[in-house]
């Protein structure tokens, strides 16, 4: 006992200190967003904003091109909602099919799905762009959200794994009670896979919120920009020294990510540990 205490103390110093070191850049970004723009790099070593100012937030919130940052947040939320609808509906249907139904070619299609999991987006990027431009979908959310209604291999896989843990006796009991296949899906399985659907929703949110390549390819007028694109514009407009506004808006885009994580931590951690989803 007497021997253990100092060792534990040392352990916490080491592990805790290292955690602070890792997160130091984020803390620095947060603190700097409250410093006067001109001071940020002059007092970069200090973690106390002196004088403390909210001016960066006011300036950043004004956005650019006549569109406030609120517009970009609203655009991103619309994008997120469509992606959520698409992934939740399509992936649960498809996963149920793979996990519970017997049909010719099931193994083949499941394998195809796993292979698409590893396919670099670059291989389909250019033809997709040409197809969507032929359809007249450029400068709209359609090229980004329509594919979401046809499933996403990661989430299908996650849900299949989850459904397989549900006892088949439940399905059989429902069949005896006269339920058809769709009713089994809707009334038996769907309520039981809510935790996995939560994981799907959370990661869909994260990936959509952070998505830069998609909006860069498909959205070109500022009134349609998402937050990640708006930040990118801040950077390319980076004039003499308005880092403050850019830092402030960076913090604004990180806040929802943190909030959702702290509320739904369990689903995030389980999602990663069970499927190896990249967060």
């Amino acid at each position: 006992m007497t021997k253990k205490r100092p060792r534990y103390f040392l352990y916490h110093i080491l592990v805790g200190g290292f955690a602070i070191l890792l997160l130091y850049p984020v803390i620095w970004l947060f603190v700097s967003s409250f410093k006067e723009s001109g001071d940020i790099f002059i007092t970069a070593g200090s973690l106390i904003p002196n004088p403390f100012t909210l001016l960066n937030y006011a300036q950043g919130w004004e956005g650019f091109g006549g569109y406030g940052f609120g517009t970009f947040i609203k655009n991103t939320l619309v994008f997120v909602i469509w992606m959520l609808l698409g992934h939740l509906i399509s992936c649960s249907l498809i996963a149920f099919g793979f996990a519970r139904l017997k049909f010719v070619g099931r193994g083949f299609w499941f394998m195809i799905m796993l292979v698409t999991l590893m396919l670099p987006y670059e291989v389909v990027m250019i033809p997709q762009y040409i197809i969507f431009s032929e359809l007249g979908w450029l400068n709209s959310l359609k090229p980004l959200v329509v594919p979401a209604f046809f499933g996403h291999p990661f989430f299908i896989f996650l849900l299949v794994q989850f459904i397989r843990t549900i006892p088949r006796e439940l399905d059989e009991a429902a069949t005896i009670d006269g339920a058809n296949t769709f009713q089994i899906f809707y009334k038996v399985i769907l309520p039981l896979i809510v935790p996995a659907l939560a994981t799907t929703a959370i990661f869909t949110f994260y990936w959509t919120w952070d998505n830069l390549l998609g909006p860069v390819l498909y959205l070109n007028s500022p009134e349609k920009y998402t937050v990640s694109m708006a930040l990118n514009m801040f950077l390319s407009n980076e004039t003499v020294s308005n880092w403050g506004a850019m830092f402030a808006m960076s913090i604004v885009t990180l806040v929802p990510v943190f909030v959702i994580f702290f509320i739904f931590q369990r689903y995030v951690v389980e999602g990663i540990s069970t499927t190896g989803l990249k967060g």
Partner: protein
Amino acid sequence: MSSRLRSNLWGYLFIGPFIIGFLAFTITPMLASLYFSFTEYGLFDAPKWIGFENYIKMFTEDPRYINSLKVTIIYVFAGVPLRLAFALLVAMLLNVGSRAVGWYRTLYYLPSLIGGSVAVAIMWRNIFGDDGIVNIALKSMGIDSVRWFGEPTAALWMLIFLSIWQFGSSMLIFLAGLKSIPASFYEAASVDGANFFQKFFRITLPMLSPVLLFNIIMQTISAFMTFVPAFIISKGTGGPLDGTLLYSLYLFKQGFEYFNMGYASAMAWVMLLIVAVLTGIIFLTSKYWVHYESEGK
């Protein structure tokens, strides 16, 4: 309707969206991209068949391509092993029965959580600036400050550090793997007088190897496709001196800045081949180093 036919119908009804999506958004574009890769294809004119010219040009006449390949290979083969080694080390540190571990796990995961965002790339760009906190820290340790944006190698390492910083998600996976190793294995080893390293190489690594295999494959593929940090940190240029011109970034520039759609498609297919070959090698060698519980007995 026979019951077999009916169950087939139901099956295809449910997975139908996947098949339609696969045909429309994956296989058709893939074949189109394969065709474009053999053509000269700008934005405004129809694709013109030129055979293997794009592929030949890539490896013989385009030093920027060779450079981007080199930069990406360094990025992948330095970044992925370092990140995974780091993740394993921290996971082992956190695999103790302390109450604070839940907290540490959360803190260590945070960089991974936000790592893909533009905000973090902007942050990284600024902490490595000439007056940034990294140089302040170096100076306080008596080391000369580095001009991270002045020299291609330094700039590339800045990107590699960013990828290592996000070791959290792998750490969570390893931690789950470590927890599933029965404590009795270690107890038995201790009784036999095994030291820490023997336990690590004889128990921990073999037991974790299936998880490790999956992680190596997925991380290698995603590292090859890294785009956002290079795009933001170099402000879309891939500079200095193409030092951060990762493969995806160069492909994007060829396709959507210079409008060489044919050439960019050829680049995409070479990328697919590289990823496929790497995955194949990892899989094929895996039988020599991946240990599956059921087989050993």
